[in-house]
């Protein structure tokens, strides 16, 4: 708590007050920034909200020529890539968190892997996209030729793999934290009854950390939904609803990146901002729920 001491010296008193005011003011600024972000998005989405209404979310055609803006293909693309990425990365992220949270908590091995995972988080999105374009795309194309689907190389599948790599460190850092919070006496009790490590992990640690692991996944999902650059470079940028995991598509974030700087016309721009608003709201809800779960878990 900030102590309520008053000083007789006026100069100090003034500085004291100014300092405390600055502290409070800065906290207010943080809150105002967030509210302002929300309202800027909301106000700028009004033209599209008014003109398109709920049709924005179930209309299939995004046709700037005819002034028709249905975001369903991008909604589908966003959900498909994010969930697919989650599906691919979850087994690995849980394995890595068990590795770091249970098997190798300390020592050189743990430190090395921890640093590697941290670095994985540090690589910029645009470099993931660049690498994906030149290394992953040709590989996916070979697979596609084998499977006898159009060999685009880019598409939902390719973006999901890159997304999976990108969200892995994020969910690892959360789940590792959660796993290392399991009380030792629980584990020791199980060991003393003759349980193997495998049994301790599957019967004690995972059930105990269930909600925390779920929160980790949720937050990773939030991360995947808004990821922009790598996906823009790898998804194929088409406006039709993806018909399979190998077909090209578009996510909400990639449409904004592609079209925001050139959208002419009020409703066009506004429809893009409405997608931004949607991303903002979804990310915020996911974030708050995830953090609440983690907070409850760690307390």
């Amino acid at each position, binding site marked *: 708590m900030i102590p309520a001491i008053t000083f007789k010296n006026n100069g100090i008193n003034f500085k004291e007050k100014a300092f405390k005011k600055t502290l409070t003011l800065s906290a207010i600024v943080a809150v105002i920034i967030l509210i302002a972000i929300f309202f800027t998005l909301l106000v700028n989405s009004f033209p599209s909200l008014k003109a398109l209404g709920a049709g924005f979310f179930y209309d299939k055609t995004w046709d700037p020529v005819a002034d028709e803006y249905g975001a369903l293909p991008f909604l589908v693309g966003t959900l498909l890539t994010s969930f697919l990425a989650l599906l691919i990365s979850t087994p690995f992220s849980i394995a890595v968190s068990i590795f770091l949270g249970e098997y190798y908590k300390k020592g050189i091995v743990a430190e090395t892997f921890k640093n590697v995972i941290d670095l994985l988080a540090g690589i910029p999105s645009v470099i993931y996209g660049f690498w994906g374009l030149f290394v992953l795309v040709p590989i996916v194309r070979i697979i596609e030729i084998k499977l006898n689907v159009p060999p685009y190389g880019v598409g939902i599948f390719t973006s999901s793999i890159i997304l999976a790599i990108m969200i892995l460190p994020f969910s690892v850092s959360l789940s590792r934290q959660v796993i290392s919070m399991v009380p030792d006496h629980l584990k020791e009790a199980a060991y003393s009854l003759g349980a193997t490590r495998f049994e301790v992990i599957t019967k004690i640690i995972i059930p105990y950390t269930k909600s925390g692991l779920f929160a980790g996944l949720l937050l990773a999902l939030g991360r995947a939904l808004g990821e922009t650059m790598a996906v823009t470079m790898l998804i194929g940028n088409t406006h039709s609803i993806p018909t399979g995991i190998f077909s090209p598509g578009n996510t909400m974030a990639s449409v904004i990146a592609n079209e925001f700087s*050139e959208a002419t016309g009020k409703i066009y721009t506004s429809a893009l901002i409405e997608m931004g608003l949607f991303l903002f709201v979804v990310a915020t809800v996911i974030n708050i729920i995830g953090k609440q779960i983690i907070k409850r878990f760690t307390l």
Partner: protein
Amino acid sequence: MKFKKSILPLLITAFALASCGGNNSQKEGNQDSDENSNGILGAGATFPYPFYSKVFDIYNKEKGIKVNYQSIGSGGGIKQLQNKTVDFGASDAPMSDEELSKSPAPIVHIPTCLGAVIITCNLPGDPVLKFTPEVLANIFLGKVKKWNDPNIASLNPNVKLPDLAISIIHRSDGSGTTYIFSDYLSKVSAEWNAKPGKGKSLNWPAGLGAKGNEGVSGLIKQTPGSIGYVELVYALQNKMPAAQLKNKAGNFVAATLQSSSAAANIDLPADMRVSLTNTAAADGYPICSFTYLLLYKDQKYNNRTEASAKATVDLVNYVIHDGQKYAELLGYAPLPDAAVKKAEAILKSVTYGDKTLQ
């Protein structure tokens, strides 16, 4: 520590200033005296980007004026000009009457060169293919799906076409190149005219999107069995084959300086907003277009100084005269004399308040 306290009010003021102006594009920009004094900012079409990039590089060397041109697509050029965030826009698609009426002030089009949109494919051996308008439309409509389709094979008896799926590559951003290409397809195919239609960004029936002429050529080079449309220069610089197209007169024509110039040999309107596609000229290439720089007719806006307005007009004047020789060097057709005359007249009409700038 004073520093920390001083930054906070600064941020708050900046923030307050920003949030009140956020929803009002007509608002005067804030005071920034040297805003345009040491450089010109333009943005738009990727179609003439190699040309502008070369001319502006030379211009900087000759006159010491830095022209920053960002190739973000024609749609972007128009939008950023309308939002008054750039000194000039650039577009290959002339602005429609509707777009002009929605702009905050009158805008003029100044043609800078002639370009051709070519069809390029990524096939083994890089063959030069021949297409009729019908086959081309059917490919881009997604109706012809394989390279060894009899429709394509009968036009190209000497080429061994593989049993490969056709991957269509189109633009993902608002593009003048797309406008020119779809303008052509709308003229030659009733079906195309009814469904995707013409525009800077279309609701494509099939294919992959890439950003800019750069992105489309990049993706075509990467994707075996792909077909796409780009400006001639991009194909020349990257050694990609350009297909021959059957024009209105029934001849198969390749895109060259001569065949582009032939297409432009028509009576030009005073405002230069004209479509050159599907030309009637016997040796004319059917998908050509002028590309334009866009300026506000009255350069006095947003605290713009007369000097910066003059600098912008001088630059455009340079591009339509001395700059023309670089167009030819790169593979664009220079402006015909008639077009230069019209462009000069348009440029003379650009004013700063009541003052003329030339």
